[in-house]
Every structure is written in structure tokens, then in C-alpha cells.
């Protein structure tokens, strides 16, 4: 068993900011990440961020990852990094099991920040398991991280910001986007993204969904259908699209499996993307000294994940006896920044989710 002070699970925007904040406070930190490089999903985000200058608005996602990693590098004496290290178990006594290079390693942590991120939601339709049906994030990874053209003609399912941004990036890569279908009666994402795509001639079909994928060994066609106001398919409105890929962009759900395993309380909160952990205002779960930040705490976006990470890292370090010299000021600044980021039309959904989470928390007390 290896003993560590603070263990951060996940080296994405939340985990990196948690590690930086904890190291600034004086704590030793171990970052664990299952992929070969840190940065989480920032490394595939080629678009410029919205939000606030404090969270690097107007900077491209992969450049934000570089900025955060160079901050991490300045704490080389305090921050230790293990990559290709997958946390496969978390126990209530803050013991973690990590698999790295085929070996099982046990770690006893004094405090933990779970910044495991989220996974893409799936959609039930006929033949949804055929090769050529992708999560939208996977298509973005293929194109932007590995430089691999994912397909020739794509049907995008979902018009949230991920569906819209990935559609635009597909077009930039020379891939034809046949259409974007959206089951809801209106477009889900920012109008600025939707308008850019519509101007390029891609139809965005609202009240429409994918009915089935067609093909024997891989996708050859997609059949879509119109939906009535009760979201039921309208017979006779099917249309066939010749595509070799169907991209599923129907949202994300928090990765709470480790928290659930350790016995931390979670609750089903649709506004946060599914099962979400019950947290204090300091982002501590119902397990003492186990903090949660970023999409694992409720699906939002990278800007708020960075602030939540900073908050959780500061609070975890304080718990370990390393209060930051400006602890109170930075914590109130973080809360103010989160309130600011959640102040837009999309933020109200998150706020409703957090309100529900607090209700569950206060009821459980």
C-alpha cells in the first residue's frame, strides 16, 4: 500500500485546477489519469471558449490544456503524475485500486478529489450498435487529436452545443453533414453555432429523430422520422439518408461509479445529466474528505469545471492542514465566478439541478 496526501482522479480541466490549487496551498498531490496524456477532453476542443476571461474565454480548448499543464509543471516538487493509470476501485476508507501497466496498485489517500468527468449518453434505435454509430465526442477525438477523417457523410443526432460544434468541425475536415436531427421542437445549442451551420446549407430538422441504422457490417444509411408533440414517431414521415456514420450527441452523464462504489450518496437529477453526487457547498461528498469537481459533479462545461476544481482543491488542501493564505477570498471568488457562468439561458438548467441536489441533501440530514 502506497500512502499519498491528496489524490486527484482525472487530469481534465477540473482535476488539473484542483491539483494546482492544492499545490498552491502547499499540499502534495498525485494526479491519476487513464489516458496517455493529461488535459481530458480539452485536448480535442479546437473551438474558442465562451464564458469569462477568468476561465480563458476566447482561447481554444487545447491551448487551455497547455496553459494548465505549464502551471502544473511549476509545482513539479509537489505534483506527481501517473498516466495510463486507471482507478478501478474506491473504498470508503479512501483506499484506491489503480491498474497501471497490467499491475494492481493500492493507494491510501488522506483526501481525494474525484474529477472523473462524464460519459456520453446513448440512444435506443434499431442497429444502434453497428460500426459507424459514434458518440459525438469520439468523432471529435478522431479528427482533432488523431487527425483521422471519421467518415464521408454523417447524420448528426442532437442539436445541443456538442452536436453543433462537432458538425461544424466535421465540415471543416471536409466531411459532408447530411442533416442534424433534433427530437425537441427547437434547437438545443447556441444560436450563433446553429446559424453558422445553417448558412453552410446543412438542414437542422427539429421534432425529428433517428429510427434505425441500415447496414450489415457497418452503417450504409440512416432512417429518420418526424415526431408528434408527444414525441411519438409519425407513420409515413420516414426519410432515408445515405450516410456512412451516425453521430450521437444526446448529452452526457456524470461518471459517478467510483463514488457509488465507495458508498457516497448520489441522486437522479436530470438537469445534472443523471445520477449526480450529493455535495456540500465546498464540493465534499457524503464521504468525509472525498471531494468532487467538474462533470462528475453534474454535467456542465469546462469553464465551470475549472472553477469547481479550484474550489475542491483548495478545500481538500485545507482539510489536510494546508489552508491557502487567501483561502476565504479565493473561495468567495470561485462562488462568484460559478454564479456568473451559470447566469445565462443555459445556466438556469444547472441552477435548477443544484437546487434539487441541495433539497435531497437537506432532506437527508
Amino acid at each position, binding site marked *: 500500500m502506497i500512502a499519498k496526501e491528496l489524490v486527484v482522479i482525472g487530469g481534465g480541466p477540473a482535476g488539473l485546477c484542483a491539483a494546482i490549487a492544492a499545490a498552491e496551498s502547499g499540499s502534495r498531490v498525485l494526479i491519476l489519469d487513464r*489516458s496517455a496524456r493529461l488535459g481530458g477532453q480539452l485536448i480535442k476542443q479546437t473551438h474558442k471558449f465562451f464564458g469569462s476571461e477568468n476561465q480563458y474565454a476566447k482561447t481554444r480548448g487545447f491551448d487551455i490544456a497547455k496553459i494548465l499543464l505549464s502551471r502544473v509543471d511549476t509545482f513539479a516538487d509537489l505534483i506527481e503524475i501517473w498516466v495510463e493509470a486507471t482507478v478501478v476501485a474506491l473504498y470508503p476508507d479512501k483506499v484506491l485500486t489503480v491498474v497501471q501497466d497490467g499491475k494492481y496498485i493500492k493507494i491510501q489517500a488522506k483526501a481525494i478529489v474525484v474529477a472523473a468527468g462524464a460519459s456520453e449518453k446513448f440512444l435506443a434505435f434499431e442497429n444502434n450498435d453497428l460500426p459507424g454509430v459514434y458518440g459525438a465526442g469520439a468523432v471529435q477525438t478522431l479528427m482533432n487529436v*488523431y487527425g483521422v477523417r471519421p467518415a464521408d457523410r454523417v447524420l448528426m443526432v442532437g442539436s445541443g452545443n456538442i452536436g453543433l460544434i462537432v458538425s461544424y468541425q466535421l465540415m471543416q475536415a471536409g466531411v459532408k453533414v447530411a442533416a442534424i436531427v433534433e427530437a425537441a421542437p427547437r434547437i438545443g445549442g447556441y444560436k450563433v453555432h446553429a446559424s453558422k451551420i445553417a448558412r453552410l446549407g446543412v438542414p437542422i430538422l427539429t421534432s425529428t429523430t433517428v429510427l434505425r441504422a441500415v447496414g450489415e457490417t457497418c452503417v450504409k444509411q440512416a432512417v429518420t422520422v418526424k415526431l408528434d408533440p408527444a414525441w411519438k414517431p409519425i407513420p409515413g414521415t420516414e426519410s432515408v439518408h445515405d450516410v456512412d456514420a451516425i453521430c450521437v450527441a444526446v448529452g452526457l452523464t456524470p461518471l459517478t461509479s467510483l463514488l457509488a462504489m465507495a458508498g457516497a450518496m448520489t441522486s437522479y437529477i436530470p438537469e445534472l445529466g443523471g445520477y449526480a453526487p450529493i455535495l456540500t457547498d465546498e464540493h465534499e461528498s457524503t464521504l468525509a474528505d472525498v471531494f468532487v469537481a467538474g462533470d462528475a459533479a453534474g454535467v456542465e462545461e469546462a469553464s465551470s469545471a475549472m472553477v469547481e476544481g479550484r474550489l475542491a482543491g483548495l478545500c481538500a488542501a485545507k482539510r489536510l492542514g494546508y489552508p491557502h493564505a487567501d483561502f476565504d477570498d479565493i473561495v468567495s471568488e470561485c462562488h462568484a465566478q460559478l454564479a456568473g457562468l451559470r447566469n445565462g439561458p443555459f445556466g438556469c438548467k444547472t441552477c435548477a439541478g443544484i437546487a434539487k441536489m441541495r433539497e435531497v441533501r437537506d432532506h437527508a440530514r
Partner: protein
Amino acid sequence: MKQEIPFTFDGVPMTGRVGDTVASALHAAGVMKLSSSIKRHRPRGFYCAIGNCSSCHMIVDGKSNVKTCVTPLRAGMKVETQTGKGVVR
């Protein structure tokens, strides 16, 4: 152009590029089917790219159930299609 990395897929020599994972190199080479479903043997391909979905489990250098989408490609790797749940050796 990035440097080439040689590997084999079911015995066939292939090349990927520096920075590839096993699955991204296979995708670039036009390999769509990475695994089969355990009961009905339906073809399964690249799906999540972040090690979540198990759709890309393959045998790499004799080891079963390797998540090829998060496994960096290394020169000389022997990549094979896996049937069923895989074998511990």
C-alpha cells in the same frame, strides 16, 4: 507527415502514425469492425474513444480485453480480433 509505426492486425502488416492509439490507426486504415458482441456476435466498432464503452476490446500482444482506443500504438504491436469474453493467459 508524422513518422510511421508498423504493427500487424490479424497477421496483416499495417502502419499507423506517431500519436495514434491502436484504434485510431485501425480506423485510419479503414478497419471498422473492432470486436463482436459476446452472445450474438454482432460487429462492434469505434464508439466512445475515451475508454468507457468496451466496444474496442481487442487482443494486443496476446493480452485480451485491451481498450484499444486509449492504448498508444507502439512499433511491432500484434493486434488481433477477439471473440467472446477473452482469455487470461
